[in-house]
């Protein structure tokens, strides 16, 4: 297992090195980035909005029911919900969800190209297949994911405001006051930096597993599973390290 870990780590590093080679044509590279932003970023907006809205609502209800104390002001529900959403939910949890949605998509797309010899065809033509297929996806993810995270923060907080008002647990004025109290823009920066790193992890890990698929459709499915498992674990480890280093 240790040997396998170092084998994959070494091969992953070599894989990344190919990714940073100069593209054959910058115009085609640029077009590919735009296509990938649409496919990986814009197409994920729907699920991010839905999940953020509901999770934001649930966080607010749970926080409100746990802070039912006359000595704790009601607006603190808004403050606590904001912190949960900004610090953890919108960056880490949304990225874990994206690791499932986008990661498996990238892995199966590249894996299918591998088993149908499309990658071999690119190599034969003299195209740097990693540069052509993977680099635009990585750049698209690094651009899109922080934007999705900003959307998630906003929608999550709106979800909390809606649920607080609808259930009567947190009056609207208190909630809006709460989300402004002791606001530290630094937390947003922390979240965005985290999500950028996660975007890199999701796209490169998924591409790696897809790129080295051998066999048939069954292996493509296995590569998708490995993608979700590996990138989720790496995200959680990076999350712990960054939080420890940055916030402690």
């Amino acid at each position, binding site marked *: 297992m240790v040997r396998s870990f170092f084998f994959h780590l070494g091969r992953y590093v070599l894989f990344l090195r190919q990714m940073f080679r100069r593209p*054959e*044509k910058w115009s*085609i590279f640029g077009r590919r980035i735009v296509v990938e932003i649409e496919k990986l970023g814009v197409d994920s907006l729907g699920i991010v909005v839905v999940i953020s809205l509901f999770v934001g609502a649930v966080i607010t209800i749970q926080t409100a029911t746990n802070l039912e104390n006359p000595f704790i002001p009601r607006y603190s529900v808004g403050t606590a919900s904001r912190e949960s959403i900004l610090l953890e939910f919108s960056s880490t949890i949304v990225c874990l969800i994206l690791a499932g949605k986008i990661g498996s998509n990238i892995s199966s797309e590249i894996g299918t*190209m591998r088993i*149908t*010899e*499309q990658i*071999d*065809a*690119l*190599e*034969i*033509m*003299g*195209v740097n297949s990693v540069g052509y297929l993977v680099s635009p996806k990585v750049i698209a993810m690094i651009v899109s994911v922080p934007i999705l995270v900003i959307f998630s923060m906003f929608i999550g907080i709106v979800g909390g405001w809606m649920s607080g008002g609808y259930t009567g647990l947190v009056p609207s004025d208190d909630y809006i006051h709460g989300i402004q109290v002791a606001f530290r823009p630094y937390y947003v920066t922390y979240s965005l930096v985290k999500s950028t790193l996660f975007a890199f992890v999701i796209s490169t890990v998924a591409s790696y597993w897809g790129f080295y698929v051998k066999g048939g459709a069954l292996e493509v499915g296995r590569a998708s599973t490995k993608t979700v498992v590996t990138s989720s674990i790496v995200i959680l480890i990076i999350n712990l390290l960054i939080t420890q280093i940055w916030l402690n």
Partner: protein
Amino acid sequence: MIEAIEVRKQFSGREIIHGVSALFESGKTNLIIGKSGSGKTVLLKTLVGLYGADSGDILYHGRSLKSLSQQQRHSLRQEIGMLFQGSALIDSLTVEENVMFPLDMFTDMSHDERRRRARACLDRVNIQSEAYKLFSSEISGGMQKRVAIARAIALKPRYLFCDEPNSGLDPLTASVIDRLIFDITKEFNITTIINTHDMNSVMSIGEHIIYIDSGNKEWEGSRETILEADVATLKEFLSPLSNALSHKA
């Protein structure tokens, strides 16, 4: 002209190709034949450079594949066209875009020039204009093969490799593909190497044939001499054809 000199290839310690040497001349259809699992595809992919040979050398008009720099290898790749068993068309691109793809990547031609060249190649392989905007999943297997040939010749290659060009095709379509490859080889004086186990291909376009068995070159000759070959495994391999011919006689 491509020359293989004592080429060996192994996977996980198991040698698949055992020192194969052969000369593949320009303007000829060179066939590598053999049973399934005999090492044909590994040999072809080693010749084309997709697999690195463990020992031996491969010369492309005297240029040794193993001594080429990254840049030289990159340039050489642009002289190579390859037709894969499953066509390997890029499925996110249309028929026309697939053929334009190598031109987009490696030429400074204007968009109109690239499109004209792609359409000329598609026309050469008898693909009608109605199919230009279709994706590879929307066309038949035979058409996919023809589009893949059009893509392979788009950059006017000096070398053409075909891995089982007839697999999965009906005999009529298979013979159309064979004829197309043969004609293109003559027309552009290409060094063409075809991997096949299709007897019709052997007899119709096999100008130069090498027979591979268990990773060894067992016989070399042409379609005119193959039926007289004195190799037991080759005789067995050819037996359906010999039987059919004797039955006809």
